[in-house]
Each structure stands twice: as structure tokens, then as C-alpha cells.
């Protein structure tokens, strides 16, 4: 896939919607095209978090492992979502496992490359942080709702 194709597909992904064309072009320089078969791990807890994923097809489960309960699914991430923000913050390690529940096609965005570009272009850094902050807040809100265990304590 050419950089132009990456650029076009990125621009159409909901996460990058409305982003300035030059910023998308800059990001496209850090992208690689990846594919995972069902059951493959995209990343595992404790490994270096050096990238994030823009999911284009399929479903990924984000899970953690408890010795007495095995793998516990926390959430699933689908086409149209982004996966992973640990690349943004020290110690740059994954906190969860991410496993492909189906065939998954995604773009991997190289975190080291991105961090460098954000340092040099604070406007791009701000834009990316703003979008990630939105994702983080919405996932946090979802987790809080999950913890409330709403369907048990109706109404």
C-alpha cells in the first residue's frame, strides 16, 4: 500500500474525521498495514507499547488474566475504533492483552515515530491528544457504567 493510500484510508476512519490534511499526511508516514488471524494477540500485558491500532475490519477483545478465572474480557473493539493509548505515556507498556476474535485488519501507527512528530509539531500533538482524550474519557465512562452493574440494580 502506498503512503497516499494510507492517507486516504486514515482520513476516512472515524477517529481522524475532520483532521487537517497535512496532519493526516504526516501520520501516514508512521503507518504500517497489519493483519491478525483469529486468536492472534495484537499485544500482551507488560510488553512495550510502541504503537496504536486503527481497526479497519473485525473485532478485538481487550482482556486481562486472573489466575483463578482465566481470561476476562473487559471490552471489545471493532472496525471504526482505535486501540491502545499506552504508547502515549511512560512507562510505555501495555496494561491489557488484546486478542483478535475474528480476522482483524488494521493500521499500526508507530508510537516512537508519532511521538517524535508530535514534539516537532505541537499542533499535531494537540490534535492527536485531543482525539485520544475523547476516546479515553468515553472508555472511562463506559467502564464506570459497567462497574455499576446496572442490570442487577434496576430500576
Amino acid at each position: 500500500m502506498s503512503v497516499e493510500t494510507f492517507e486516504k484510508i486514515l482520513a476516512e476512519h472515524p477517529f481522524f474525521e475532520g483532521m487537517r490534511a497535512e496532519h493526516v499526511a504526516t501520520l501516514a508516514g508512521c503507518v504500517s498495514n497489519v493483519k491478525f488471524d483469529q486468536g492472534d494477540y495484537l499485544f500482551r500485558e507488560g510488553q512495550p507499547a510502541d504503537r496504536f491500532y486503527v481497526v479497519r475490519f473485525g473485532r478485538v477483545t481487550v482482556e486481562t488474566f486472573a489466575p483463578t478465572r482465566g481470561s476476562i474480557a473487559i471490552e471489545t473493539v471493532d472496525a471504526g475504533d482505535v486501540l491502545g493509548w499506552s504508547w502515549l505515556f511512560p512507562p510505555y507498556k501495555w496494561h491489557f492483552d488484546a486478542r483478535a476474535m475474528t480476522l482483524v485488519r488494521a493500521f499500526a501507527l508507530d508510537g516512537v515515530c508519532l511521538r517524535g512528530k508530535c514534539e516537532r509539531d505541537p499542533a499535531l500533538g494537540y490534535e492527536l491528544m485531543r482525539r485520544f482524550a475523547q476516546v479515553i474519557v468515553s472508555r472511562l465512562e463506559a467502564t464506570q457504567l459497567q462497574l455499576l452493574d446496572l442490570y442487577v440494580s434496576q430500576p
Partner: protein
Amino acid sequence: MSASLEEASAAVADAARSPDPMRTTPCRVRRVLRETADTFTLVLEPPGGSLGFAPGQFDMLYAFGAGEVPISISGDPGVPEVLVHTIRAVGSVTRMMQRLRPGDRVGVRGPFGTSWPVDLAHGHDVVVIAGGIGLAPLRPALLHLLAHRGLYGRLVLLYGARTPKDILFPRDLREWRGRFDVAVEVTVDRASPDWQGAVGVVTRLVDRAPFDPGSTLGLVCGPEVMIRFAVAALERRGVPSSEIHVSLERNMKCAVGLCGHCQMGPVFVCRDGPVFPYERVRPFFGLREV
């Protein structure tokens, strides 16, 4: 779309109301369907046929020797010969009802209350968001929408349950998924390892759902916290709150606006609801008694 929503749903409700709302009619239990570990469906035969109902309305069901509870009608409005109610056993009356068998009798008053304003969504997209047992009051609306599919734009159902075992109406969901004219997304809060579906709260599904926010009617039912977050998610997508309708639950006794048990500020949930335009009830959300 919203100007006459309340009038229209009130009119539908009035047309379906029985002549004496305080009279209990004994109905024979035709079938009892086990839905999940704590939820079951009663299929009742009203003597002399049903009076009909509008999607979203409820009946007062009386279990002899136990008491009376408000339960939404979960059946097909196109099949009014039977009265269908899906009930979660949570306390004394509903647990008693769980023990009913075919041939037993249940007292029924109703139907009561306002309905989902489905007719006013003609030509628009409809997004139905249900959590837990909240799918039961929405089922008649979904069946109505599907029976008149050509009248609507895109149709989306977003449903959240606690675990895969708590998913209501799996047969319906499978059938609706098999149709290509409705987008059905189901998610659970907690999954067993063999679950291949989505995990996460139902409100997360709103962000990706295929509908045109400027021309969408939102119908939401579930626990109140879930309703609040679902409405917020719809608003974030750009659906005006005037186009969002919710169904509320409050303790009830008379069901006809006399006793004040269900009062919430100036509104009586039994008479002015249970289906409300969200704007009307927003100030009372999260309050049990006002």
C-alpha cells in the same frame, strides 16, 4: 417531527383503553416461556379477545393472593388475541407469577399509559436502545416498525444485557439480524470466554450506529442510569433531545392518575407516561420520588 408527539401518543393510548380501568379481568395463562434464569413470558388469553394495545403501554397484572404489579406488554400489536408480558422475578408478586402454569389465571387491568410515537417517525431513521428487561417494552415497537418497514428510514436496535445468558428474546434477535433492513447490535457487560459478540456497555454502540442524527427518532428503555447515558450518547451524535423518547418506571397503585403513587413533580407516570419525550422528564431523572 416533534410538535404533536405527545398528543398523538395520548390519543393512541385513549383509543386502546378499556371502558372500566379499575375492573380486573381474569385471563387464562396459555403458555409460560422461560426467557432467562429470572425472566419469563406469560402468554395470556383475554376472555372475548383483546381490546388491543399500542406499543409501550402496560397492564396491571394481579397474581391472586400476592398483589398487583405494572408490567409492559411485550407482545406483537399485530396479534391482539393474546396478551404477552415478559416479567423479571424480583420480589413477592413477580416471584409468585414465575410459578404460574398453563391453565392458571391472572387478573388484568389495562392497557394503560402512553405509547412509543412510532407513527410520527415515518420517513425518518429510528434508533432503539434497550438495556436488560428494557427490551420487553420496546419489543412491540420493534415488531410494529418491522411490520411497516417501508414507512421508515434506517432502523437500528442497540441492546445491552448483563451477560450472554441474560439476553432476552434471542430468537427474535437472530431473526432480525437475518433481515438486511435492520441493524442489530448486541453487547454484554460481562462475557463468558465462549462469547463471540461485543463486550461493553450499550451506550458505546451509539457512536458507530448507522443513522442520520438530523432525522432520527430515538426510543430508549432500561435502567435510569443507562437511559441517561444513552440519551447523552444520542445527543453527542447530534440527535436533538426533542426527538428522544424514554420509558420510565415508578411504583404504581391505581394506574389511572388518581392515587399519586407514581407522581414525579407535575407528571403522573401511569397517565402521562410511561413513555415520555425526554425533555419533559429530564429534570426528574435519577429521583425516585419528587
